[in-house]
């Protein structure tokens, strides 16, 4: 009986509480109507002048179809961009448009300044609310890391999301040009794309008579994951005068060691996690691992550490391609294949290939960008 009494009291309490909340809500609703009218005239919490500008610009839009076929209206004068992938963030910086970058993801670490921008979460599962809270004119996404749901959900609530879908270097360059156009920086875009294209052409001319190096590109060591034919990495390898030995229709196939032993690649290309200093350690580990150590490429020391830029379809990828080409075809590029620091206009430094054979003793040379 006592229990049921307590239960009844609890029920009454809960109901009263709920009614109270509801009543407060109603009162607030009436009181707040004037507040809403006020807030309607000042749409963005910025300084008055740019705020008025943004309001005016928001009205002028153009219809755009992105690389996944989604149609949307994008403001003509985009002032605030949220990037949902590291390569897009990097491209924005390479275009010198970082002032327009309102936010990026927790994965965006190149250049280091990108880490200081407000984050909206990881690329695969960003907080949609956090994106909206940054008041973006445009959100940039890419099929290589973002989920279709994210773009769909944002478009559904009226936030334009332009998704790029590069499978080749040409695709990456055209996506870069389109991004520059959308951000109102067509000139910078054309300049950057021309420069990158010219560097790629130089490589092509230098390498066109050379046989392709047969490489195993390692995306992930354990389990061993490599690349398929239709990935931008496969295309980037071709520009570097290399060909993946793995033939797969999947983009990121899991490969058995047996297959690797059978194919006997000339080179093993690993991607470095740039910020960890254990690159040499990892090569040595590979030499100690049973099946790996038996590979001809490993025995000959033909293990190349490519920059992590290689996994990001961004302007920095061209640096990585050049470095890898120098590594794989030293006879074509007599200049010593050493650590290269490629200075970009905004001062970012990209750490290119490290010769695998070198020991880690002289680690002082490191990279300016991460102070190592």
């Amino acid at each position, binding site marked *: 009986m006592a229990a*049921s009494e307590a239960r*009844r009291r*609890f*029920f009454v309490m*809960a*109901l009263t*509480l*709920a009614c109270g*909340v509801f009543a*407060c*809500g*109603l009162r*607030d*609703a009436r*009181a*707040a*109507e004037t*507040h*809403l009218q006020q*807030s*309607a005239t000042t*749409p963005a919490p910025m300084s008055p002048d740019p705020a008025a500008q943004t309001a005016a610009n928001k009205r002028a839009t153009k219809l755009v179809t992105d690389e996944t076929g989604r149609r949307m209206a994008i403001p003509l004068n985009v002032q605030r961009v949220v990037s949902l992938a590291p390569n897009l963030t990097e491209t924005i910086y390479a275009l010198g448009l970082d002032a327009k970058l309102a936010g990026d993801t*927790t994965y965006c670490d190149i250049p280091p300044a990108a880490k200081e921008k407000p*984050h*909206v*979460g*990881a690329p*695969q*599962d*960003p*907080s*949609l*609310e*956090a994106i*909206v*809270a940054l*008041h973006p004119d445009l959100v940039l996404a890419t*099929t*290589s890391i*973002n*989920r*279709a*749901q994210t773009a*769909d*959900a944002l478009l*559904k*609530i*009226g*936030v334009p999301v332009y998704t790029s879908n590069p499978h080749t270097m040409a695709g990456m360059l055209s996506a870069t040009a389109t991004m520059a156009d959308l951000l109102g920086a067509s000139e910078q875009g054309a300049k950057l794309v021309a420069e990158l294209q010219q560097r790629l052409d130089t490589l092509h001319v230098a390498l066109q008579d050379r046989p392709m190096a047969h490489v195993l590109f390692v995306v992930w060591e354990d389990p061993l994951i490599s690349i398929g034919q239709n990935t931008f990495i496969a295309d980037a390898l071709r520009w570097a005068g290399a060909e993946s030995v793995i033939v797969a*229709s*999947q*983009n990121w196939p*899991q490969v058995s060691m047996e297959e690797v032993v059978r194919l006997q690649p000339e080179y093993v290309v690993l991607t470095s996690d740039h910020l960890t200093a254990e690159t040499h350690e990892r090569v040595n580990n590979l030499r100690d691992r049973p099946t790996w150590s038996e590979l001809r490429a490993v025995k000959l020391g033909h293990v190349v550490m490519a920059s992590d830029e290689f996994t990001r379809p961004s302007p920095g990828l061209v640096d990585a391609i050049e470095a890898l080409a120098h590594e794989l075809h030293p006879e074509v590029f007599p200049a010593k294949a050493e650590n290269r620091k490629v200075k970009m206009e905004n001062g970012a430094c990209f750490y290119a290939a490290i010769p695998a054979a070198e020991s880690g003793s002289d680690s002082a040379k490191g990279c300016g960008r991460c102070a190592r």
Partner: protein
Amino acid sequence: MRPLTPRRILAICGMLAAILFVVVVISLRVGAYPISMRDIVVTLYNGAVGNGDSSEFSQVIFGLRLPRIALGILVGAALSTSGAGFQALLRNPLADPYVLGVSSGAALGAMLSLIIAPHTVGAIQLAAFIGAAATIAAVYFLGRRGGQLDSATLLLAGIIAASFLSAIIIFLLTLVNGPGLRSMTFWLMGDLTAPPPTQNVLGWFGFLYFVFIVAAGAMYTTSSDLNLILTGEQEAGHLGVNVTRVKLVVYVAASVLTGLAVSVSGTIGYVGLLVPHVMRMLFGTDYRLLIPTSAIGGAIVIVLADTLGRTIVAPTELPVGAMTALAGAPVFIYLMRRRIR
């Protein structure tokens, strides 16, 4: 035990609904986008009277938070109700759509429909229902020994079915390329963020809730008979209960509910197992009370779990399935030990 009057059912359900209301208010209030209570109420009021605007407030409230809450309520209620149904149908307290492999069956069906007909609205729901129904039928027949439904054999059959179906799902996942794969991996962990597949959001939720109410309502009509069946099928038969018909209704209804939940949110574990048990401990085993309390309780749990999932590691979000498993397992162990003592 006091007699179960309609008044008592209403009182208890009213209390649970009040708790659900408070949870919903909290869920509307918290998130990465800061909105004051007053702005929420204003936005809701404006939306309700039809002069909704395209402000960021209404984007967040109507575009992001409300659909997620509505989906959470639906999924929680459907999973808990179907859990309660399976527990009666199989006369096994550990029955649950997740444990019995029914969720995996529904997931496999939904996945196949995503691969074959990705843009047909409603196809996923139908395929998920077929997957759920086929799985529970297989588990039911595998779980019989000498014509009798054996509790341990049944659970083993469920576990085997679940792992077999998961293996098929993994096989399919390796065949699917790129972004589709990524979406499905998230979906399999239980995810409430997927936007409705049509432009007509209200119509979509109307369809989902209509299916839920029909299926849960059908199950509710059998609740008095279920009480008798739980004391023994033969005894219930002697008392004039059409045992075969009742079991068929519960079987179809529970499969529909599981398929419905899985098709929109992926596989979310523990809710269907845990919530009916908690409700039994609080309010007794009478199915006339257990079905509605489980439905509301499940809604509370999912909305709460999802709210926590999108706030504790903000701005990144935890999938709701991870949240329910994280919170559900310890609570279940606690309840089990308390019961033994």
